C-alpha cells in the first residue's frame, strides 16, 4: 500500500521538483566529495551515513509510530470482529467491509461527503474568486478587509461550530428570529434539527468558515500574474471584465486547481464541524464517513467495523486524489516543467 500511496504525490514531485530539486541537491553535495576522498573515503562515508541516520531518525521514528503504524493497524483491525478488549482472535476476513458497504447509513455518509465535495467547490470557488478580485482592486482598508475575510478560517472549527449552533438554535437563535421578523417561517425544529435542511445548513457554515482560505490563496495567485499582461490588455482597450475573464482567471488556473484539491481532501474527511453542529443527525442526515467511523468506534466499540470504514474512507480519498492528480494536476506539472523554466533556474 505504501507504494500506491507514494506514486500520486511522487508523480507530481518527480516531473518538476525532483529534477530541479535533485539537481540542486547533487550540486550542493558535490564539493564535499573530493575533500572526503582526500581524507580517506571510507571513514568519511561511514561518518556521513551516521550523520544522516542521526538526523533523520527522530522524524522517521515519530512518523512511523504515529502515522504509518496506526494505518497498518487499521487495515489489520478491519479484518477482525473486535470490541476493543481482549486479543485479536475473531478473524472474519472481509466481512466488516461487506457490512460497512451494505450499511445504508454509511452509503448515505459517502453520498453526503460527495455532495459536500462538489458543492464546496461549486459555491466557494465563484464566491472566493469574486471576493479576491474585489480585494485586489486598489482601495482603502485593503489590508483590513483581507484580515477580516481571513478571521473565520483562523478560528478553531469547534469554536466556530459552537457559535453557529447558538445562532441556529430553533426559535431563540438569531437566525430564526431574523427570518421570522422578515416574514419567513423557519422550520420548527430549527435548520439543524430538520433533516431536509441540516446538510445544506452545515454547508452554509462551512462556506462561511473556509471562504477566507480560498480568497487568501487566490489573492496570492493574483500577485504572480505578470503586470505586463494587464498593461497590454489596457493598451488593447480591453474592458475590466474581459481582462479578468481572459487573463486573470486562466492564469490563476494552477492556484485554483490546487485549492480544489485541498478542498476535496478536506471535505472527504470532514468531522469537527459536523460533530459539533449535529453529531451526524438528525436521522443521519448529516452523517459523514468520519462521523460514522467515530460513532462505531467510540460509542459502540465496533473497532472492526470502524476500521473497515476508515480503510474505505482512505481508499476513496486515494482514488479521488489519484484521479485528480492524473486528470487535472498533471497539466500543471507539465506546464511547470516546460512553459515556466523561470522556476528552475534559480
Amino acid at each position, binding site marked *: 500500500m505504501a507504494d500506491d500511496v507514494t506514486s500520486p504525490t511522487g508523480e507530481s514531485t518527480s516531473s518538476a521538483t525532483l529534477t530541479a530539486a535533485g539537481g540542486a541537491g547533487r550540486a550542493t553535495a558535490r564539493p564535499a566529495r573530493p575533500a572526503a576522498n582526500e581524507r580517506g573515503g571510507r571513514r568519511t562515508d561511514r561518518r556521513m551515513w551516521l550523520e544522516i541516520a542521526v538526523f533523520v531518525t527522530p*522524524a522517521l521514528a515519530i512518523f512511523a509510530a504515529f502515522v504509518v503504524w496506526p*494505518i497498518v493497524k487499521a487495515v489489520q483491525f478491519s479484518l477482525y470482529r473486535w470490541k476493543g478488549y481482549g486479543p485479536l482472535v475473531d478473524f472474519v476476513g472481509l466481512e466488516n467491509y461487506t457490512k460497512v458497504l451494505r450499511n445504508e447509513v454509511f452509503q448515505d455518509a459517502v453520498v453526503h461527503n460527495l455532495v459536500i465535495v462538489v458543492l464546496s467547490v461549486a459555491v466557494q470557488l465563484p464566491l472566493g474568486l469574486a471576493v479576491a478580485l*474585489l480585494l485586489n482592486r486598489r482601495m482603502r482598508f485593503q489590508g483590513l478587509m483581507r484580515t477580516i475575510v481571513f478571521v473565520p478560517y483562523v478560528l478553531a472549527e469547534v469554536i466556530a461550530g459552537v457559535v453557529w449552533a447558538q445562532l441556529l438554535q430553533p426559535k431563540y437563535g438569531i437566525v430564526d428570529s431574523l427570518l421570522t421578523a422578515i416574514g419567513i417561517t423557519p422550520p420548527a425544529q430549527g435548520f439543524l434539527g430538520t433533516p431536509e435542511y441540516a446538510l445544506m445548513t452545515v454547508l452554509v457554515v462551512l462556506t462561511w468558515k473556509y471562504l477566507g482560505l480560498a480568497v487568501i490563496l487566490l489573492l496570492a495567485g493574483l500577485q504572480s500574474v505578470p503586470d505586463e499582461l494587464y*498593461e497590454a490588455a489596457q493598451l488593447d482597450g480591453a474592458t475590466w471584465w474581459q481582462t479578468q475573464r481572459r487573463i486573470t482567471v486562466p492564469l490563476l488556473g494552477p492556484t485554483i486547481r490546487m485549492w480544489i484539491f485541498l478542498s476535496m481532501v478536506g471535505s472527504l*474527511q470532514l*468531522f469537527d464541524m459536523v460533530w459539533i453542529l449535529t453529531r451526524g443527525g438528525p436521522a443521519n442526515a448529516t452523517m459523514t464517513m468520519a462521523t460514522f467511523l467515530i460513532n462505531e468506534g467510540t460509542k459502540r466499540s465496533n*473497532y472492526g467495523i470502524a476500521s473497515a470504514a476508515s480503510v474505505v474512507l482512505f481508499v476513496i480519498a486515494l482514488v479521488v486524489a489519484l484521479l485528480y492528480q492524473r486528470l487535472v494536476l498533471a497539466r500543471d506539472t507539465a506546464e511547470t516543467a516546460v512553459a515556466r523554466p523561470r522556476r528552475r533556474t534559480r
Partner: protein
Amino acid sequence: MTTTTLDRPTAPAGRPGRRNRRRSAFGEGGPLVYGICLVVAAVTLTPVLVGVLGGFRSNAQLANDPAGLPDPWVWTNYTGVLTDPAFWRYALNSSVIAVVTTLVVVVAGMMAAYPLARYRFPGREAVYLVFVAGLLFPAAVAIIPLFIIITRDLGLGNSWWGVALPQAAFALPMTIVILRPFLMAIPRELEEASLLDGATRIGFFWRILLPLSGPGMVTVGVLAFVGSWNAYLLPLLLLQSDMKTLPLGVADFSTEHSADTAGVFAFTTLAMIPALVFFLAMQKRIVSGLQGAVKG
C-alpha cells in the same frame, strides 16, 4: 504541491513594487466596491460579533430580542468564565500541547530536512517520498488504532505527550515538504566556503544553515501551532476531565450549559481571543505557509 515550494525562500519577502503597479492597472474602488466590501465584512464578522456581544447580555435579553444589543451590559458571564479554574486549566493544556507539538515538529522536521536537502545518498528520494505520502493520509483513518496504541501500548492516554506526539507526526510531512526546498535554496557557495574554512557539515548546519532558516522554521512552527491549537478529534478521544484542551472545553461547556446561551457565548469568546490575537499577529506567516503548500 511540492513543485511550488521550490521558490518559497524568495517568496515570503513579498513583492510590494509589483503589487503597486498592479493596483494602478485595476482602477480605483468606487462606492459600489466599498458597498460590497461592507457586505462581505458584515457577513464574515456578524457571527463573531453576535457571540462577543451575546456574552455581555443576560439570557432574558437574548430570549426577548435575539438580535439586540446589550442593555444593560452584563459582565457576570465573562467574570464567571474568567474565575472558572477549569477555563484556565484548559487554556494551559492547550498551550502546553501546542508548544510541545511545535517544538517536536520544528526540531525533528529541521533535522530530517537537512540531510534530505543537502546530502547525496542512495535512498534519499525514497525517504522523502515516505514523508510526502503522509500528506495524503486523512487523520481520521488512523484515529482508532492511534487511540489504542497511545492508551494501551504506550500508556500515554490522557497526557500532554499522548496528544502532542501524534499531532507532531501528522504535521511532519508538510513541515518537511516546506523546509526541504528552503534548505536547498541556500547557496552552495556558503557551504563550500564553510567547508573550506574547516567546518564539518554539522558545523555548517549549526552555524550557518540554522540561522539562515529562521523564516522557514517560523512558518512551519506557526502552522504546527495552529493545527495543534485548533485540533479536536484526537484530543476528543484521548483527553478527559482535567486534561482537556480549549476546543474540548468549549464543546463541553456548550452541551452542559445548553440553556445558558449567554454563558456559552462568553466562554466561546474568551476561548477565541488567544487564538485570534496570535493568528492575526502571525497572519503573514500562516498565509505564506499555506501558499508554500498550495501556490501553483
